[in-house]
């Protein structure tokens, strides 16, 4: 039970906003010591953990091409393109991306999207472009919300699309784990089929929220402008 102190350290560390790298490292060391590992075993675990998890840093390979096309105005072009399409609102742009992301992930094409590959260069500029067309300028607070929702559309789409595809990591993890531990013979396809109801629920819930997003942004923009007016009006009032 003592090892659970490590879990507690993670929660406390994040809560008091220490550098997450430091939190994770210290919690790892403390947990390992409480679990009776020797310093050499701990260093070995850090080393082999790093080398076996290099695949999660794969996003780095796409930074050069994304950086290059950004330099030549990709985001500006994406905004301009959306500005021409009058019926596209921020919510509808993101709903469209959610549909594409979920369907392609369900077909096993998870790497066709992603935060580095599509959200930064294309999805966010398009969602922002739609907002610019509607409001003229976008207050910082609203821009932040559009950013959050752009990343969220990618996450929801890929999480609840990919499990419908049979060869995805989580499906294979389930089958290998339960087959070896409990002697079952589960077929990946059986699991993938039962991921479909959740995929539909995820689409309905998140899609509904995205359709409501436009009205929420309308309100947020109005509020931000009202705030701005009162701060501008204040000195004038003081003079009178």
């Amino acid at each position: 039970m003592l090892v659970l102190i490590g879990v507690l350290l993670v929660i406390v560390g994040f809560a008091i906003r220490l550098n997450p790298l430091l939190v994770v490292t210290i919690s790892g060391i403390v947990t390992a010591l409480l679990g009776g590992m020797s310093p050499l075993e701990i260093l070995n675990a850090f080393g082999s953990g790093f080398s076996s998890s290099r695949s999660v840093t794969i996003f780095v390979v796409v930074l050069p091409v994304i950086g290059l096309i950004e330099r030549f105005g990709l985001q500006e072009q994406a905004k301009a393109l959306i500005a021409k399409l009058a019926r596209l609102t921020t919510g509808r742009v993101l709903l469209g991306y959610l549909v594409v992301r979920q369907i392609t992930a369900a077909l096993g094409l998870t790497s066709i999207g992603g935060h580095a590959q599509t959200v930064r260069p294309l999805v966010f500029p398009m969602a922002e472009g739609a907002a610019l067309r509607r409001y003229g300028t976008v207050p910082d607070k609203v821009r932040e919300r559009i950013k959050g929702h752009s990343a969220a559309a990618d996450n929801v789409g890929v999480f609840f699309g990919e499990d419908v595809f049979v060869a995805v990591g989580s499906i294979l993890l389930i089958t290998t784990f339960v087959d070896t531990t409990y002697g079952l013979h589960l077929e990946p396809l059986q699991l993938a089929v039962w991921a479909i109801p959740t995929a539909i629920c995820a689409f309905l819930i998140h899609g509904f929220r995205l359709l409501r997003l436009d009205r929420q942004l309308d309100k947020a923009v109005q509020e931000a402008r009202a705030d701005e007016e009162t701060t501008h009006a204040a000195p004038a009032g003081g003079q009178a």
Partner: protein
Amino acid sequence: MIDVESIYWLIGLLFVAWAFLIARDANHPRRWGSSSFWGLLGLCFFYGTAVEAKTAPAWVLGIAVLVLVALASTGLLGDGRSTTTTEEQRTVYAGRFGNKLFIPALTLPVVTVIIVLLAPVLKIGSRPLIDPTHTTLVALGIGAIAAAVVGVAILRPRNKLAPVFEGRRILETIGWAALLPQMLSTLGILFTQAGVGTAVGTLAKGVLPSGSLIAAVVVYCVGMFIFTVLMGNGFAAFPIMTAAIGWPVLVQGFHGNPAIVFAIGMLAGFCGTLCTPMAANFNLVPSALLEMKNKYGVITAQVATAVPLLCANIALMYFLAFH
């Protein structure tokens, strides 16, 4: 055969190149700290090959990783704000190149998908050309190179190495968050080795009232959610909760259909992934990539989807898995 190690070497090479660029940048506010961080990270990617092949001791890499954490958490790492085009210049370029700008962006996924689909038939003699165990990673690496080449050919930057310079700009805005997903993955391994899973399983059994199906379903799904939040991914939570409740109580005790119980249980865990900073590559790296002021802004946008979806998963499991 192009195996996944060559992609890791490509990543390592990029980090070393960026470290070199930073070292040459006299205006960089954290020049030497930043350069050492990215350079050492690059070398770790090379050394990792030997660790995986068990030809070199892992503890050397362990020390290097701790040095990286020290560099990042003591403020020696910073954003050098490398020079790039201004917004006005970009608008002019956008007018000149128009929709041609999308070609490199689309080359990336298209090449990736083509290689993934062709991989099973691409063979030299009887040997596969692409590592069959990591097809997608290798395909993405090749897709990224192809897209950069196409980008340079279409946009004709004055310096042909412009993709490397511009890549550095994005990397520095991400900063230490680039290392976090790997560190979290390592933490998961340490937690497992230290026996956190067993401790948690004992706790979970203690809170479960016996004989109630709905209570067991709720504890399994909510447990998957909570441990995914704590450990950052559903894969780490699944063996713990399944050993504690999923198999002994739901499948053996209540005769649930194992495929339905496990599939929906995992998806309940994914709802937790939407809510946790521990899932750094989904929730913290994108907020750094998008240069958000609030690094938890992505999570804020996701919580209102995750909670109702968790309830939906509980209902789906309760009504579908037990007949």
